[in-house]
């Protein structure tokens, strides 16, 4: 796939990711469907396999999941001419997805820190505690049951449940568990 990208195209890409950044409450991954609509279906800057690989590689790699955005920029750049443009694509998409949300969070955090003794600031931070804790458990549940179609798909939820119990109750290093999961998967047991 070869592309001719003009400066105006890069600018449009940057602007689109800046908008998505402001919409990404709940994490950057929540805007992935719109990225697919824009990059694959609309502009044809990415192929479907490239889009899926970007998400899959970033999920498997260590580090924050938002790096799937960097891989989209990388693949757009590769399509437009090679590794140097790929790095430029990483720069454009990552700066776009990060700049608005981190600026807002930074301002909110500094403001909240200065006013941390206000009654409603404390009420917000403490009041949200049960909600965000439940959200974490729900996220684990959703991820573990994503491919659960029938009772024969019991291995992934079981492995997730056993992992949760071990991490909750012991201090075993997390990398041992990930290694065990990788081995079980490699030999087709999960």
């Amino acid at each position: 796939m070869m592309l001719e990208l003009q400066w105006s195209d890069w600018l449009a890409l940057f602007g689109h990711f800046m908008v998505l950044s402001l919409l990404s409450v709940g994490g950057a991954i929540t805007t992935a469907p719109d990225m697919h609509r824009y990059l694959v279906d609309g502009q044809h800057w990415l192929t479907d396999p490239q889009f899926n690989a970007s998400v899959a590689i970033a999920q498997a790699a260590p580090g924050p999941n938002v790096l799937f955005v960097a891989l989209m920029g990388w693949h757009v750049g590769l399509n437009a001419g090679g590794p140097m443009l790929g790095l430029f694509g990483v720069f454009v998409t990552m700066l776009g997805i990060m700049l608005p949300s981190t600026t807002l969070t930074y301002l909110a955090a500094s403001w909240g820190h200065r006013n941390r003794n206000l009654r409603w600031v404390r009420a917000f931070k403490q009041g949200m505690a049960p909600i965000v804790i439940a959200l974490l458990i729900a996220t684990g549940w959703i991820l573990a049951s994503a491919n659960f179609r029938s009772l024969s798909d019991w291995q992934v939820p079981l492995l997730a449940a056993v992992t949760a119990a071990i991490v909750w109750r012991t201090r075993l290093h997390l990398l041992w568990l990930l290694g065990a999961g990788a081995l079980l998967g490699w030999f087709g047991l999960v």
Partner: protein
Amino acid sequence: MTAAPTDEDEAHPQPQSLTDLFVSFTLLALQGFGGVLAVVQRELVEKKRWMTREEFVEEWAVAQIMPGPNVINLSLMIGHRYFGFRGAMAALAGMLAVPLLVVLLLALVYAQFASHPGVAGALRGMGAVAAGLIAATGLKLMSALKNHPLGLPLCIALALLCFTGIALLRLPLVYVLLGLGATACTLTYRKLDR
């Protein structure tokens, strides 16, 4: 915990320098397969003891409600808490710089191995473990609710409603955050003394 957030509390250790912050977050990020949050909680709260579980949950609430990647927001806020703007940038750079290089390297080799059945299986296995890690992080943080102004039973009721809405009914996150979040914050506001 009905007292004001203990940001100025010197009882627990702090990062030594910007370099300490950068290196700590780089190491955290590189251990975080399928999500970094479980590692952040384990390392910063349980091992380094930079913050208590209660403080962690409070910061996480803000990181979650703001747009943007949650873990990135969280590292920005933790860095800011200790060294202001420079701390925020150091934590952010630690979270992103080295992991970005790793992910690009992986993209370069992925094409050769993507079709190997073992690789696909290993990814599935690690995904299952990552799901368990996130759930366990939530289970552990439940102990931060013991001294909550609303009392434990009401907290558990709110948490169960939230879990039902998100995990079982699959309601959009924004409705749950607005509806249950506003209820919980209003109830807490009324319990807090000035």
